[in-house]
Every structure is written in C-alpha cells, then in structure tokens.
C-alpha cells in the first residue's frame, strides 16, 4: 500500500483490509507523495506533500554538501567540510599552527590565502561570533548575528571616511560579549570612520564619545533633542535616560518571587542541535526567564523543542519538535502563544486597528448610528478596502502615486478625499462629532478617552496603551511599525483575548528596541498575565528582565559545542551563587 505493488508489502503494520488487486499495478502512497513533491505544477500540492516530509541530512554526502571526490582533498588531514563544520573558535585554532604542517612549496602558495582567512576569522571572533560554523545557513541566523557578521565584514574592508549607521547591534548578545562589540565599534572609529549607533544598551551608551537623547516621550510627544554631549555630562542631567543611566530610576527587583501554582511542565532528554541531552522543569504560574550566552542553545530548547510540543498538544499542529525523550505535565496547559518580532503585515492597508480586530467593531458602531441606519449603510460601508464607502480615486489608500517615469514616483494626498480615504457621504456619518477618518487618525491615547463609553472597544484599545503604544495612531500603516512595536501590537492582541489561566506565553527577546522606560511597561503587562495564573516564558539577555523573573533557566556555559547544558534552574537570588554561569556574574551587579 505504501510502496506500491511491485515492491510488495513492505510495511508490517496490521491493516486488516489491505488487499491487493494483483492485476492493476498500484503506485503506492510513498511513491505518489514523492512524485507529487517533485512535480512543478502545483505549489499547493507541493506544500501539502511537505507535511509528510521531513528534512534530514542528505544520504549522499551526510550533510557535507560536496561530491565525494571533493571531500577527499585534505589539508593537514582535514577536508573542507570538516573545517566548515567546526565552530569559528576551533577553526581559528586549527589555522594557527597550520604553517608548521605544510611543506615549503605549499606554504608559499598558501601564504596570502591564509592571511585573508585569518583576518576575516579574527574579525568575526572580535564581534563575539565564536560559536558559528561556516556551514551555518544564513537564514537561521538571528537579526543580531547577521548584523554582527556585516559589521565584521565592514571592519575587514578597512575603508576610511565612512559614516556607519547601526541599529541596535547589541541585540541577542549576552552581556559577556558586549565589550567585544564595543571594541569592534571603537575599532571601526579608530581607522577613521564616523559610527552612529541607535542603541538602548547601557554599556554601549556609556562607551560612546557623544550621546544624543531624543524624546522626551514617544510619537507626538517626542521628536525633540532632550540632551546631547559626552555620556559623563548627560549623567548629571535629569532626564528619563539619564535617570536610568545614573541609577536614579531603576527597574525594581521584586521583594518576593512568586510561588507559582505548584504544577510543573517537565521536558527531558532534549538533544536537538547542540543540546546535550538536557531536561528542565518549567514551574507553571511563574515568570520564567531562559538565559545563556549567544549560541548556548536557548532557541533550540525553547523555540524548536518546547514550543512545537506545546503547539502540537494545544492545537494539534503539525510542527515537528527536535528530538526529546519525554514531556510531563501537558495537561496543565491548554493554550500556547508565541509572540515574536516579525512584522504584523506587509501591506500598507494593514494597521493596528485592523490587526487587533477592533476596527470591525468600530465599523459596526458607525453602522449603528441612526443616520447610518436611515441611509442604509452597513459596516462594509466603513471599510477602506471595499468599494462603496471608500474614496474611489485613491481606492481607500489616502495617497496617490504619480508616476514621473524616469524620476522617482511622487506620493500626494488624494485630491478627492484629501487623504481621508472615504467618500463624502461616508464621512458625513459622525460619532460624537468624529467621522470614521478622524477615528483612524486618533492616537491610541485619544481613542481610549473617546471610546470610554464603549466597553468592548475601550478594553481592547486600552491594552494597546498599556503595552506602551499610546502614541501610535489607529490607522498607522503596519509597514511603518518597528519590530518592537509590532511585537507589542501582537502582545496586546493576545492580552485582549480571554486568557484561560492555563496559557503558556513564549516571548523571544521582547526587549529588542525598548528603552528602559518601555521595558518597565512591558514587565508590567507580563506580570499582569502571570498574576492571572498564566505562565510567561521569556528568552532574554537583558538583566533588567532577568532580575525580576521568578524562575531562571540558564544554559551554557559557552556557545556552540561548549554549551547545550543546563547550568542552573531556580530564582535569581540562587543563580548568583553559581560559579560556572556567566549570567550569574552580571546578575550579581544588578541585584
């Protein structure tokens, strides 16, 4: 049945009604799937067959990627795939002594090549990427990692007189590796470049020659220069940023850690990627923080093992977790939600109101206004995406693109609706004096006040404000939201849904792009979730988050092959006593 007639019955499974018709050759399910997978005709069918496929190392080369002839060429006993699968630390060490192992002739030929390789390797090591291998596919790199690779390449190029602009290079970097990054940035400056960094990390701010603080608040309340000058001078000022830098403001360490509800989720024998047969107990009803230096296996353990297990359990999804032995305590969880920083929408028509789903309710509200009823307008009339209510000149976009042929396209406000997206008749319907277009232009803060008397709307918009997004407008196009903002929009959507009290939230580095003040907001929201009995698991490097967690799971001690073990499980107070953990070292400074 599975392999077709010709090969006969290869599966020993007990199928009672398996009867073959000896006359007609039957293709077999496996062959059928393989044929469909290879067929170029239908993307849908291909995707469907992919559900029954699994990615495994290739049988021919066992992951070495090259034909066998090429793999039998060796330098000092190693082939190119061996080297490419070493982590960069070991690779650099291998190259260190290589000259002594070569013959004279080889040494002459290799001289320049070796120099180039060593330089490039050194730059990568300098920015803290010691745990990567050359065969690591780019698409599996985190944003921070790929940025640091580019940084290393740039330092290698030795150009001068360039202005480099970097966006939060410290993301995903453990405190331990921060100084390496700072050294790399200084190196870039010292060879004669200007380096401009947008950053929230305290150490990097303090290492700057010149610090510019923009604010004071977000959105409409921001956009001014609050302070600028050497970090030492800024420390003396009384601004929000300075407050956190000089320690006047602080994210408070909770006096007491939560006890949790006494239930546990227990995962054992995880061996994916570099994990060394690890297991952990996740106490439920607590704020859990998973830490460890970059490459220590945090994401492998949580995103690629735990999350698929939970997702399979809660939603019957088809995700395949990496290898693990057993999991206990699933019955205490009925929902799992992963909140990442991917954008909420790629079209300019998507916005916080549509994403969170309350735009539908706003439209229903407008349709229920007596005037709308008299005219027979339905909720559809108030959508800028369908014909009837929208301005037909700009098709609801509010902007018109004027093509200038060989000059850049020019965007102008639509002259018909004046950027309001709707036609005149629709705009005549007003709720509390505001038309639907006015509502879209409100900031979240204004909307909270405006919809105070509409409980179901108020609740949802209020959550957006709570996660610190009071400054965005309801109609702000999704493409203009930053990663951090997008994540918080998602967070607020999840928050506004009814939680079951048995929900497991997973957040991967939620502090990305957040200022101290924003982190405080975020922690407030997360704490609220935990207080309602849910479990929040955060993968994080930020000490401010780590110190307020109830339970810490620390992986390490190093990245790559040197990691993959669980060093510690317990409260922050207990962690600082651990001698092996790098996290402990830095946490001690915070507590």
């Amino acid at each position, binding site marked *: 049945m599975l392999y077709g007639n010709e090969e006969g019955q290869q599966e020993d499974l007990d199928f009672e*009604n398996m*009867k073959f*018709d000896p006359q007609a050759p039957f293709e077999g399910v496996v062959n*059928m*799937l393989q044929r469909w997978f290879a067929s170029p005709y239908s993307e849908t069918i291909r995707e469907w*067959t*992919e559900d*029954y*496929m*699994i990615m495994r*190392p*290739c049988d*021919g080369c066992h*992951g*070495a*990627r090259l*034909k066998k*002839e090429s*793999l*039998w*060429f*060796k330098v000092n006993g190693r082939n190119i795939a061996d080297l490419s699968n070493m982590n960069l630390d070991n690779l650099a060490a291998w190259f260190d002594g290589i000259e002594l192992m070569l013959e004279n002739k080889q040494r002459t*030929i290799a001289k320049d*090549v070796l120099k*180039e*390789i060593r330089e*490039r390797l050194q730059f990568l090591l300098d920015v803290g990427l010691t745990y*990567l291998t*050359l*065969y*690591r596919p*780019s*698409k599996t*790199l*985190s944003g921070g990692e*790929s940025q640091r690779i580019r940084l290393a390449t*740039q330092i290698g190029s030795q150009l001068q007189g*360039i*202005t*480099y*602009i*970097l*966006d939060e290079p410290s*993301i995903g970097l453990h405190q331990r590796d921060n100084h390496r990054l700072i050294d790399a*940035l200084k190196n870039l400056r010292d060879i*004669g470049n*200007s380096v401009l*960094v*947008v950053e929230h990390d305290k150490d990097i701010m303090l290492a700057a*020659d010149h610090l*510019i603080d*923009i*604010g004071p608040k*977000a959105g409409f309340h921001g*956009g001014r220069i609050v302070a600028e000058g050497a970090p030492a001078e800024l420390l003396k000022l009384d601004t929000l*940023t300075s407050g956190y830098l000089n320690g006047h403001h602080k994210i408070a360490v909770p006096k007491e850690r939560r006890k949790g509800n006494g239930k546990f989720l227990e995962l054992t024998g995880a061996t994916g990627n570099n994990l060394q047969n690890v297991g952990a107990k996740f106490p439920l009803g607590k704020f859990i923080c998973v830490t460890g230096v970059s490459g220590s296996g945090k994401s492998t353990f949580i995103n690629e093992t735990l999350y698929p297990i939970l997702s399979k359990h809660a939603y019957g999804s088809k995700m395949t977790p990496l290898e693990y032995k057993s999991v206990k305590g699933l019955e205490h969880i009925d929902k799992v939600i992963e909140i990442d920083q991917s954008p909420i929408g790629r079209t300019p028509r998507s916005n916080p109101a549509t994403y969170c789903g309350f735009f539908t309710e706003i439209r229903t509200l407008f349709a229920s206004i007596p005037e709308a009823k008299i005219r027979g307008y339905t909720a559809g009339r108030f959508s800028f995406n369908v014909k009837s209510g929208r301005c037909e000149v700009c098709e609801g976009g509010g902007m018109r693109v004027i093509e200038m042929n*060989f*000059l850049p396209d020019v965007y102008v406000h639509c002259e018909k609706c004046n950027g309001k997206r709707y036609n005149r008749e629709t705009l005549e319907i007003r709720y509390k004096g505001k038309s639907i277009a006015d509502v879209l232009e409100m900031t979240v803060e204004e909307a909270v006040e405006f919809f105070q008397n509409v409980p179901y709307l108020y609740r949802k918009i209020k959550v957006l404000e709570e996660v610190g997004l009071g400054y965005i407008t309801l109609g702000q196009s999704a493409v203009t939201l*930053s990663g951090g903002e997008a994540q918080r929009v998602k967070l607020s959507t999840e928050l506004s849904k009814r939680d079951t009290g048995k929900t497991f939230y997973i957040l991967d580095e939620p502090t990305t792009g957040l*200022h101290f003040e924003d982190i405080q907001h975020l922690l407030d929201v997360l704490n609220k979730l935990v207080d309602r009995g849910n479990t929040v698991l955060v993968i994080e490097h930020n000490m401010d988050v780590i110190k307020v967690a109830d339970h810490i799971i620390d992986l390490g001690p190093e990245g790559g092959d040197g990691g993959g073990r669980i060093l510690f499980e317990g409260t922050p107070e207990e962690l600082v006593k651990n001698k092996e953990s790098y996290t402990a070292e830095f946490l001690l400074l915070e507590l």
Partner: protein
Amino acid sequence: MAKSSNSGPDMPVQDNESIEVFGARVHNLKNIDISIPKNKLVVITGISGSGKSSLAFDTIYSEGQRRYMETFGAYARQFIGDMERPDVDKITGLSPVISIEQKTTNKNPRSTVGTVTEIYDFLRLLFARIGEAYSYNTGKKMVKWSEEEIVENIFQKYNGKKIALLAPLVRGRKGHYRELFEDVRKKGFLKVRVDGEVMDINPKMQVDRYVIHDIELVVDRLQVTDELKPRLSQSVQQTLKLGKDLMFLLVDLTPNPSPKERGLKDPGRKKTSQKTESEVLFFGEDLGEVKQYSRLLMCEDTGISYEEPSPNAFSFNSPYGACPVCKGLGTKHHINMEAVIADPSLSISEGGIAPLGQERDAWVYRQAQ
C-alpha cells in the same frame, strides 16, 4: 557610499569635524537641528517611538543614499528605483553612508556564514591549491606526474632496463574494436596489448565483442640509457597524448636484460612457447612490472583519477562541486513515516494513511481494494 558635498555655492564653509543637520522634520521630528561629531562613536538613544530611527535612518542615511543615487544618470536611476527626499532643510558634512541593519532578508538555503563572510571562498582556493588528494577507494594519497617527472622517474628507477610505453585506449569495456585497431595501424603502430597480452596489429584485427577488454597501444619499446633519453622523453610525451594523460610502463624485470630488441611475429602462441628474455619482457602476462603514470591525480592501486582541483570543485553552489544527491544543500526531504501513518492503530479505511484520508469513493481506494 553617498557622495559628500559640503561645498555648494550657497553654503558657508563648514568645519569638517561634524555632520550638521538643519530642520529635520521626518515623521515626528520637531524641526530639529543637530551637529554630530565625525570620527567619533555616537549613540542615539531615547524611548521607543521617540524618533531615533527617524533621525538616524530616515534622515541621515536616506539623504546619504539619495545623494549617491543622484550621481547616476536619470536613465540609470529608473532601474535602481526612487529615493524619497527626506524632509530636512539641509545636511552638511555628510560622508559616504553605510547602514548595517538587522534584516535577515536572505532566505536562500545556499547562503551560509562561510559564503557571506567570503571565508569559504578563500578556503576553496586554499583546498584547490594545496589540498592533497586521497583515493576514495583506498584512502591512500593520490599522485600525479608531470612529463618531466615521469621521464626522470623512469630514468632513475629503471636505468639500463628494457621498458615498453603503453597508452591505454580502452579500459574495461566490451566491443570488437575493429575500427580502433585499423585506425592505429594506419597511424603506423605495430603492436597493441590486449588484456595484458602484447600482439601485433594485423589488418582486419578484432577481439571478442562480448568480453570486457583492456586495450593499450604499445607506443615505444626501448632500453633506458643516457643516449636514448631524448627519445624516451619524446615517447612519453606521445604516449600521454594518446592515452589521454595516462600511461602504463611495462618493465622487464629479468636480471640481465638483453641488449637486443626485436619484435616477434606470432604473438598468439607465445603463451605456451618457450620464453626468451625479450618474450618475457614483452609478452609475459604476469611477469614484468606494470607501472602507471598519470598527469592527473590518480590512485595508484585502483586507477581512479580525479580532475585537477579548481576552486569550483569545492563549491556546494556549483555543479562541479555539489553533492549530486542533495545538489549541495546538505539536507533532503524524506518521507516522514510518522506523519504518513500518524496513528498505527487505525485501519486504512479509517484514515490510517494520513495523506489518503478516510475511505471514500476515490480512485486510490478502488485500486487498493
């Protein structure tokens, strides 16, 4: 890499120590002026949404990019796309701008840390130039010879001995090879070695077409002496040409080599006949030593040869180097039996084979029954 221009006619001379931004109004920026020192490490901070990125990326970077684009002609610009002019009065002192962002837009499975850092490219070069080849059959080191090295080697090892130079024409293939024999006969060669047995080439000669044959052409027979060195060198050259970079050397191992050199007329009977010294040299099946020389990398034991390594051969993104099974990706889709038979306790009609679903009136089910 934007073009810096701080010497416009209407601009006052700027000190070259800072980037001056005047009247920035992008997004929520409130018409700000700012001076950013050059050749310094400058950090811009502020709470989320305060306008940090608007200043760094949407004003300074975007203006730098735009000025760079302006250096292209209008014709070229239409292909590059448009750059919006940021809402700013003036930026002076701008040096070429490179942004190092966080985007991981590269979803290509062929892009790896090695390729983006270009370390892998150098590694390929290294292996192509100084990599030592080993045979995948025996694990032994492969060897290759240049013409001069072959001549020198023969001269040293077999000085005074009688040798024959053979150019392999057919290796382990079936066929009668009538045309081949005719062809080499017309070129003036007298002898061939078929399946280890040297014989004269006769007109209309052929071999059993259903048997696998090894055929080598005897290019020259000579004694290795100082006088004959130029001839040896020339013959080696010709043999390698005919044998497509491969040559065999047949050496007479009898202790006292006969100085005479003569051809024999009837090779067919020699196996059974009383052997003379020269017969041993040229007609013995097992006697004498056969040595292989190749201008290519070759395994001396099994005769497999590799092509000259090029950096391409180590690239998994090139058909010359990639594993033919996975095409260089290192992973491959396999059928996941656990997903196909998600619940082994179900029968087929109950949906035991997940891709088929439950039993219904469909072709596969009729076939199965």
